[in-house]
């Protein structure tokens, strides 16, 4: 039906002007909104103060509800565990046995790793935590994947810091308020984490897909090097995320790209650990970066030296000996992915 020719609400001038003014305000408001969006796209950190204050004001509500949801979910898990107790017991025992074997291997590798680092005079960059907080909410009604963290600037949380749980990487801090912070989860479409495969050290970029999975973009073109069950850890490239935080496990392929699922599930993580930026210079300007002392040239043993375990004890005591240089892939990946 065609619109009526006369849309006036009546003969009252006041009503007519009121209606007209309403449209003027609405259209002007839309123009302002577009400008705000343009500013947000050009400078995502604009309006940080306003958004931080809004975050502070709204977080207590989420924190309160979180404990209730936790109780309900715990009850659900308990009931389902009861019904699956038998099969679960067997599976857990098998997993425990496998884990014990892996643990012994990991201990050995860790000891060796420490020794090698000492030899290389590479003190590990401090990896202490900024704070431990709870994840209390998320942006469940938007295409973005954000989570709200119950700690903010007053606890030392700053924009850009990595956030992890004991299971693995969760994301990085995007906005901060005084008592709350917003975290960009690794499953968000704008998130990109440099990772490497534990099995063979293949580097890749883990980009979120927005639906809870992660896409692995390899740096080389051609056959996809990832297999199902491969575990990915952060590589430390880029300087924001510390190396060797577990990130995801490969679940399958979608065309040429490998799809992975994050190991840390923010909904189940009781605590989130905020860590300092691995190398703070990575976030600042180049002038602030302290010059790194150049390592002296390495005097290695003859190239015929075997792998580290076969090294005779007297050679292991030699401070100039660098087994890590003799067996690159194996030394870079001291642990192996569990067989599927």
């Amino acid at each position, binding site marked *: *039906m065609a*619109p*009526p020719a006369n*849309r006036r609400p009546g003969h009252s001038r006041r009503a007519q002007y009121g*209606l007209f003014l*309403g*449209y003027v*305000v*609405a*259209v002007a*408001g*839309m123009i*302002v*909104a*577009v*400008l*705000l*969006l343009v500013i*947000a*796209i050009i400078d*995502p950190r604009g*309006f940080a103060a*306003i*958004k931080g204050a*809004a*975050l502070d004001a*709204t977080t207590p*509500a*989420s*924190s309160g*509800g*979180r404990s209730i*949801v936790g109780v309900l979910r715990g009850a659900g898990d308990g009931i389902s565990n009861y019904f699956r107790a038998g099969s679960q017991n067997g599976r857990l025992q098998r997993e425990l046995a496998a884990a014990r074997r892996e643990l012994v291997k990991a201990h050995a590798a860790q000891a060796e790793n420490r020794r090698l680092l000492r030899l290389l005079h590479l003190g590990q960059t401090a990896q202490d935590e900024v704070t431990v907080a709870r*994840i*209390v*909410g*998320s*942006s*469940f*009604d*938007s*295409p*973005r*994947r*954000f*989570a*709200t963290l119950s700690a903010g600037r007053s606890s030392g949380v700053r924009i850009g810091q990595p956030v992890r749980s004991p299971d693995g990487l969760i994301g990085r801090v995007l*906005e901060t308020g005084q008592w709350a912070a*917003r975290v960009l989860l690794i499953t*968000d*479409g*704008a998130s990109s984490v440099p990772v490497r495969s534990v099995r063979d050290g293949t580097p890749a970029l883990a980009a*979120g*897909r*927005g*639906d*809870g999975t992660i896409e692995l973009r390899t740096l080389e073109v051609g056959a996809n090097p990832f297999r199902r069950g491969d575990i990915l850890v952060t590589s430390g490239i880029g300087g924001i995320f510390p190396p060797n935080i577990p990130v995801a496990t490969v679940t399958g392929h979608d065309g040429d790209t490998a799809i992975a699922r994050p190991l840390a*599930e*923010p*909904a189940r993580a009781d605590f989130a650990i905020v860590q300092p930026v691995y190398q703070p210079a990575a976030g600042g300007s180049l002038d602030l970066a302290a010059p790194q002392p150049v390592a002296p040239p390495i005097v290695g043993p003859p190239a015929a030296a075997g792998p580290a375990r076969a090294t005779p004890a007297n050679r292991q005591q030699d401070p100039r000996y660098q087994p890590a240089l003799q067996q690159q892939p194996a030394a870079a990946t001291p642990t192996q992915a569990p067989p599927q």
Partner: protein
Amino acid sequence: MSRIIHSQADLAMRDLRLRYIPVVSTGLAIFLTLLPFIPSAPLLPDFGFLMLITWRLLRPEIWTARMALGLGLLSDLVAGHPLGQAMLLWTATFLVFDLVDARLGFRDYWMDWLIAAAALILHAAGAWYIALMMGSDVDFRVMLPQIGLSILAYPIATQIVVSLDRRRLGG
């Protein structure tokens, strides 16, 4: 509740109800986004927007388009969208609804649902496009579960709004 007004206080109460029940209920729906659910994909509807269009479709006369502007600002701040997203999308929706109302002589419940479904799809598409401009490169199919659930939630929102409206009018 009696329809007869006994005192000035009753009158004031009645006026408050008439004016503020829609705004306050939509505001509360906006605050539902603070519920501590952390799903891995967008799944739950944008309750604020759902409530807003339900009120608008049921009672076209109570709000002008600029009301969507203010409520959109509140939604942006509470939900952590980029500032301006809900302001733009919600106000645009209201202007489109005004055009639709001018074209259609009447609407019934099924047409309301259809119009609401179109609005919900466009709203999700707009949010997705703004996320894309902000650097979040995700497939649009990610939004489909949320769109489906929102459309199915419209009758429930209508029930809630109708009962609130009955209270508002003092029935």
